[in-house]
């Protein structure tokens, strides 16, 4: 399969992720969508790596996976802490800071 098929999938997943971030209300779902985005980028990197014939992309992806995991941990920690205070993770309600 050509490079562009992978890119296509990556972009589709990316778009779905973006769509999710915009539409979803649950904090957890939004975090999942962010994972989708990072994942699509990883897919890109790996696809390019294979296409370009060097492994830099894979190295990059490796870093990226590690970082994504860490990020997820932080994100969920924040969500849990917030839930403890506010009793909700519905982001529509988390808007004391505005204007």
């Amino acid at each position, binding site marked *: 399969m050509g490079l562009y098929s992978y890119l296509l999938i990556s972009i589709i997943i990316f778009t779905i992720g973006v769509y999710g971030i915009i539409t979803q209300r649950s904090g957890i779902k939004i975090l999942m969508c962010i994972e989708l985005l990072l994942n699509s980028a990883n897919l*890109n990197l790996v696809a390019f790596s294979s296409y370009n014939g060097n492994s830099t992309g894979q190295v990059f992806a490796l870093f990226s996976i590690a970082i994504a995991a860490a990020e997820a941990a932080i994100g969920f920690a924040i969500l849990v802490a917030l839930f403890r205070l506010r009793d909700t993770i519905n982001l529509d309600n988390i808007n004391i800071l505005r204007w």
Partner: protein
Amino acid sequence: MSLNINFAMLAPEILLTVLAFVIIIMGLLISNKSKNMLGYLSAAGILASLVYVIGNGMTEKVSYFYDSLVVDPLSQVFKLIFLIVSLIAVIASIEYFKDNRNQDEYYALILMSTVGMMVVASANDLIALFVGFELASMSTYVLAGFEKNNPSSLEAALKYFIIGSLSSALMLFGMSLIYGITSTTNIPGIIEFFRSAPLMAESSLGVLAMIFLVAGFGFKMALVPFHMWAPDTYEGSPSVVSSLLAAGSKKMGFVAAFRVLVLALVAIRADVHFTFAILAIITMTYGNVVAVSQRSIKRMLAYSSIAQAGYIALAFVVTTPMSIAGGILLALGHALMKGGAFIAVAVVGYMVLSDNKNAKNIDDLENFAGLGKRAPITALGFFVFFLALAGIPPSAGFIGKLFLFYSITVQAISLSSSWLLLVVVIAILNSALSIYYYARVIKYMYVLPPKGERIKEPTAYVVAILIAVIGTIGIGLYPEPFINMAMNAAQVLGV
């Protein structure tokens, strides 16, 4: 490159990383009471790094780790910025987080975020850049939400985190595209590639990559429309963290943009200038116009910070050495001014809370009434920072704006370009508009009667504010070395 490489130029980063771990370990070992000393320890570490950075030449260029990190004038200038900001923030935190159980984590995180920023400043490879970026970001996500029992703080952290992650993802996506096009992640390599194959930059992928990168960096810089998190986060976070975010973390976006955009992409596409002009104009206008109607000072500072980002972004509008130098100078100035200003807000918070334990909206404009009497040094600090932010000489803000406006005027004249001229005019009008809201606070501080007794300003805050004040005015009065530094840094970019 052999293994016995000399890490001397990376000593600050190494020192701070080690220090971060030491602090965490010490935090486990020592009692809660004695954790207050950790602040001094980290301040000392940062100060040492700062001295090291200043002392160890700004001119020579050294690269490390297979050319993924470089130490050159550009990186040094920004390291200087980051270290100063951290120093201010840490010194202020000694008071702000006094007797907090989690101080060890706090200082470790600050140090880690500083290291992350410094890595970005030195990054010569997209991977290093991304890692540094994320290191700094993730530390600051946590820092923003460090007041676990404060809903505002957590909300700030959450918003910061979500938009930050989104931007990271965009940035990563952009980087992946660049890697795809150029098959390298080394920045000089990328530049070389685009130089030799300019058509690739014009391709859809190239443009897309560029856009994603701008979005990613724009998030950090708080450029409109990637700024949405900034007011909420700056308002909600602890003031010392806001200081770090606005003054330090923001500049990370700029240094990344200088490194990547200016060299790799901007130079080969004319309409990038135009795009940045639009972004810069929208950003500064938006920031200033909305700041006018704010009553929360932190929020006002946040919008002012957005506006300042717009000014700094003018550096990308023409990308001449002069403009880059101006951007760097204003970034330096802004770090001092905005960093100091947020610390000063912390003093106001301290003051208000000492009046009334359960006070809400501690950074409301009303609480600034008579600040000149209640907390003279803080008020003086605000006064200096505000005037500097408005670009009144002699101050760092003036010098920075001077270079930026100058570079654009010159370009407008030499290209006989009317839209560039328009950009300057709008920038000037913005600059004037900004006086309105700064002056309003100054009025509250000095004109209105105080609402309480004079307070004793905590020493840590005073020191932090004074460092910023001296820096702000010092650069204004004796800008020569800083100008040279900025010009050298701009030379590195070879524009």
